[in-house]
């Protein structure tokens, strides 16, 4: 599991997800700061978008896991 090329794949997946979710979080905080009344709606949209990105990243992690097992 460690020291294999699959670990690099898992790391790359995390990198992409980190960038994506970071952008969503930053934009959501900005939006809430501009319009605090809409914070509930912004939060829901933020969580959904983050989940979609996380889903793609987890595909990468699963593939990394399968690569490490084989």
């Amino acid at each position, binding site marked *: *599991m*460690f020291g294999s090329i699959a670990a690099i794949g898992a790391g790359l997946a995390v990198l992409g997800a980190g960038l994506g979710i970071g952008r969503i979080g930053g934009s959501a905080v900005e939006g809430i700061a501009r319009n605090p009344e809409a914070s509930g709606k912004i939060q*829901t949209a933020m*969580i*959904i978008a983050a*989940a*979609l990105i*996380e*889903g793609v990243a*987890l*595909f990468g*992690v*699963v593939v990394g896991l399968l690569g*490490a*097992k084989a």
Partner: protein
Amino acid sequence: MQQFSKLSFLMRKVAILLAFVGVSGFSFANEEKEFNVSEMIMHHIKDAHEWHLFGPEHGGTSIYLPIILMDNGLKTFSSSHFYHGQAVEVESKEQGASLHYVKGVGPAAGYAMYHEEIYKLNAEGELHFDGEHPHNTQPLDFSITKNVMSLLMGSFLVLIVMFSVAKFYRKNGAVAPKGLAKFFEPIIVMVRDDIAKANINEHKYEKYVPYLLTIFFFIWFNNMLGLIPFLPGGANLTGNITVTLFLAVCTLLVTLFSGNKNYWGHIFWMPGVPVPMKFFMMPIEIIGIFTKPFALMIRLFANITAGHIIVLALISIIFVNKNVAWAGLSVPMALFISILEVLVAFLQGFLFAMLSALFIGAAVEEAHH
């Protein structure tokens, strides 16, 4: 702010203290064999035919779950006939490692268990390995495994809790809730208002609230049970891809059967685009029907499994370094991840229900152009 800096100062002090303990720490005296982290982790996130309670992995105390096989008639016996069976070691062809499996004794004679999978022994009375995988035939396995047991217990818990909440309102009417109902009312209202009403057409959402509530509470309860390391929990149920597959198929079927003319029109003959484009969009939209539940399945499975792997990997730091002082690092980190997992347990249930509601909402949406 003042409080926070005080806290961080305290934490730094604890860290320094732990570093000193690390120098004078004692190491484990007698080690038997090389500790294999990935093998241990894979063993823990997989299903099993026993429920391990305490003590060492071999020879500790376990609950042996029933094994039910369909192989020329129904065969049922306790899994202890495997776990207390005859251990066999086979030389592996690759990398000089050896493979271990157990032959069943008593009523389990004629079967063998390798990595929690049950195989039939061949004419020579052994498993024939090709690489790492046995080539023997497998009987149909309907065993009550650890995950099945956890599923039954989790479902029972959801039923008890929800019926007692429902009973409160039946007895007292729509009053300010007390006890269990007091805790669950805001959560049920959240599922109805923030998940169902927000995503599904206002006149149609009520029909889908029971489904969304069921899926939310089932996932949430079982995620929480999975975080408990001992008996009522400890199984990796929602981190089992078959369980999440079934949940995703439920959402797929609900979506397909509630799809209206407008929904199917958008799939087979996309309105508002040129005719060649309509042909181009059709296969993409048809694939889209299946990729949405597929993503639901992978998301829940991978999130929960990844959570379990991280906690186990952090705890293994101690055993990899063979020094108990590493507990000063690994236990706080594992605790932090465990607390994060409590949030994730809720969030994954919420997301599964939310995205299901989103798909159902798209299926029942009326045309508005």
